């Protein structure tokens, strides 16, 4: 039976909709009352090891059943076969038969998925060219590099052309070239209107993919949405602006005049460096112009002016730590 949810009219259009989902692993609480809604596009799922990322992904791909709460993928429970058709899943570890070639692997998976055998060759060609494995399709999986394996797993995930893709650690251990190709592949999927949930420890790659993040900790969502919002919500602390000028002995004078601004909470100089001024404030947008003005008035040559921990990767890092 397909789960008919109370607000199914609403959740029909939502790629992924979780409400109050909990999952126990024996005595260990994997997910704790988790509610989440995904929008189309790429969303990153972040969290340290053991925070419940893989559990969540297994639940969404219908391999686990939640102990409480409900999950809907386009309004359908992913535990049912109708639901499973809508989700493509690429696991974090390799569960391959190493002696098969990429093509064998995909052909057998296609048979298992119930695709007509007539359609399989053309479908495989199409999918292999999408993931860029067409020229190496006969390589045995045990001889494949990590990058090729990841792409084989993604090819497997998109066999049924699902609108929702769940990718667990697709960047782990891949070399830079494979990494770049994978980022491009995922961005390409995004333009096709797919919804992608991707987990990774490598924040640089996530930064290239998206600024929509879901942060998990101890099985709970600590933030969902754009990185900047996560920052504002979670790190309730003033930001620091780095003002780099051309080395100048009078930097202390500059520091004094910066302090005259009432929005500035503090100023510090980096040890041993005569050209960087760190300005602490809660309202960077108000302080920026003032800083530029002061520098110009006093003939300090600006080299650089930015909020230091604003880059998504940095924000996410501090969320990991904080």
């Amino acid at each position: 039976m397909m789960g008919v949810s109370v607000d199914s009219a609403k959740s029909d259009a939502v790629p992924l909709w979780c409400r109050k989902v909990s999952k126990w692993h024996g005595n260990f609480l994997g997910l704790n009352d988790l509610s989440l809604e995904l929008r189309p596009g790429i969303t990153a799922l972040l969290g340290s090891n053991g925070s419940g990322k893989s559990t969540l992904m297994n639940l969404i791909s219908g391999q686990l059943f939640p102990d409480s709460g409900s999950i809907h993928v386009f309004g359908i429970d992913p535990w049912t076969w109708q639901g499973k058709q809508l989700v493509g899943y690429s696991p974090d570890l390799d569960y391959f038969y190493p002696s098969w070639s990429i093509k064998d692997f995909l052909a057998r998976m296609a048979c298992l998925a119930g695709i007509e055998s007539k359609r399989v060759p053309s479908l495989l060609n199409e999918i292999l060219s999408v993931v860029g494995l067409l020229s190496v399709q006969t390589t045995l999986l045990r001889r494949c590099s990590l990058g090729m394996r990841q792409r084989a797993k993604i090819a497997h995930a998109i066999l049924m052309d699902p609108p929702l893709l769940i990718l667990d650690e697709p960047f782990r251990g891949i070399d830079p070239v494979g990494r770049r190709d994978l980022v491009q592949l995922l961005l390409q999927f995004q333009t096709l209107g797919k919804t992608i949930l991707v987990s990774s420890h490598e924040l640089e790659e996530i930064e290239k993919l998206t600024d929509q993040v879901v942060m998990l900790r101890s099985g709970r969502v600590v933030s969902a949405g754009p990185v900047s919002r996560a920052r504002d919500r979670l790190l309730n602390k003033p930001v620091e602006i780095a003002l780099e000028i051309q080395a100048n002995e009078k930097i202390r004078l500059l520091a004094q005049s910066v302090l005259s601004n009432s929005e500035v909470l503090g100023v510090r100089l980096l040890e041993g460096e005569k050209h960087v001024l760190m300005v602490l404030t809660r309202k960077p947008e108000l302080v920026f112009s003032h800083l530029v003005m002061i520098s110009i008035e006093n003939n300090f040559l600006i080299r650089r002016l930015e909020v230091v921990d604003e880059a998504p990767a940095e924000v996410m890092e501090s969320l990991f730590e904080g």
Partner: protein
Amino acid sequence: MGDEIAVIRCRNLTRKFGSKTVLNNVSFEVSQGIIGLLGPNGAGKSTLIKLILGLDIPTSGDISLFGKTKVELGKIGFMPEAKAIIPSMKGFEFVAFAGELEGLKRKDALRRSHEILDCLSMGEARFRKLGEYSTGMIQKVKLAQALVHDPDLLILDEPTAGLDPPARNQMLDYLSYFARQQGKSIVLSTHLLGDVQAVCDQVVVLNFGVCLASCSLEKLVGNKADSYLIEVAGNQIDAIVALGERCVGSQDMGGFTKVFVQCDSSLGINNIASKILAAGGVIKKFVPLEGNLDDVFFALLDKQRLVAN
């Protein structure tokens, strides 16, 4: 840096396995510091590492460490990429064991083991069995076993693989500590270009067995001193108009605009800033456009491919 003895010097290094050339005429020279060894799969990195460790013999060419062609025992510490641990051993025992293999006396090895694990802030975990360790702890123990005999050259193969961001930053901190404050030389082989950009002084780029670049990171990545990225909010259009031809490109980010600015002298920058302010723009960010290792790396690979065709 330049006047010291080269830590590693390779001259026309070639290694063939049958008809397959894994390293082709590789020559480079690096000095003390953290050396990033970059390259995609099959670039010949692991073969190069084996040659440096003296586990393999080059088909032709030679390699010298600290100015000597013969690899001196106990001068090198190696942290393998594979798990390479004995699961039933306790953390500190394993490190001491590595020390004994390098010829330390049992007592010295145990003392060194504890010292280094202290240094890497491994607390009570050292008394647990390695089989129960998390990835981060295993990486630390592997770093410790490479350091236990106090080598001058550390060769680290993917030390940050599989680590979450805090653990990874910690590992990078340790590396820069050992290189900058303890004077060790570190060869860092990694797929994560971000790691290299964060800590390395020098970079060696390999692809298909050919050395594409070997120089300091700054030189490779470069610093385009005359280009700036300015993020402007407020009265964006007026600000861009006010910049005139100084503005070489702009990108509307919704709410603010990224403006790329070219200016010849540093005096001009303040001019530009004041122009933007005068036009009612609000400056959100003002950074010199630095080269990105990613871009440079892929440019190198692309160039090689073009030349080959």
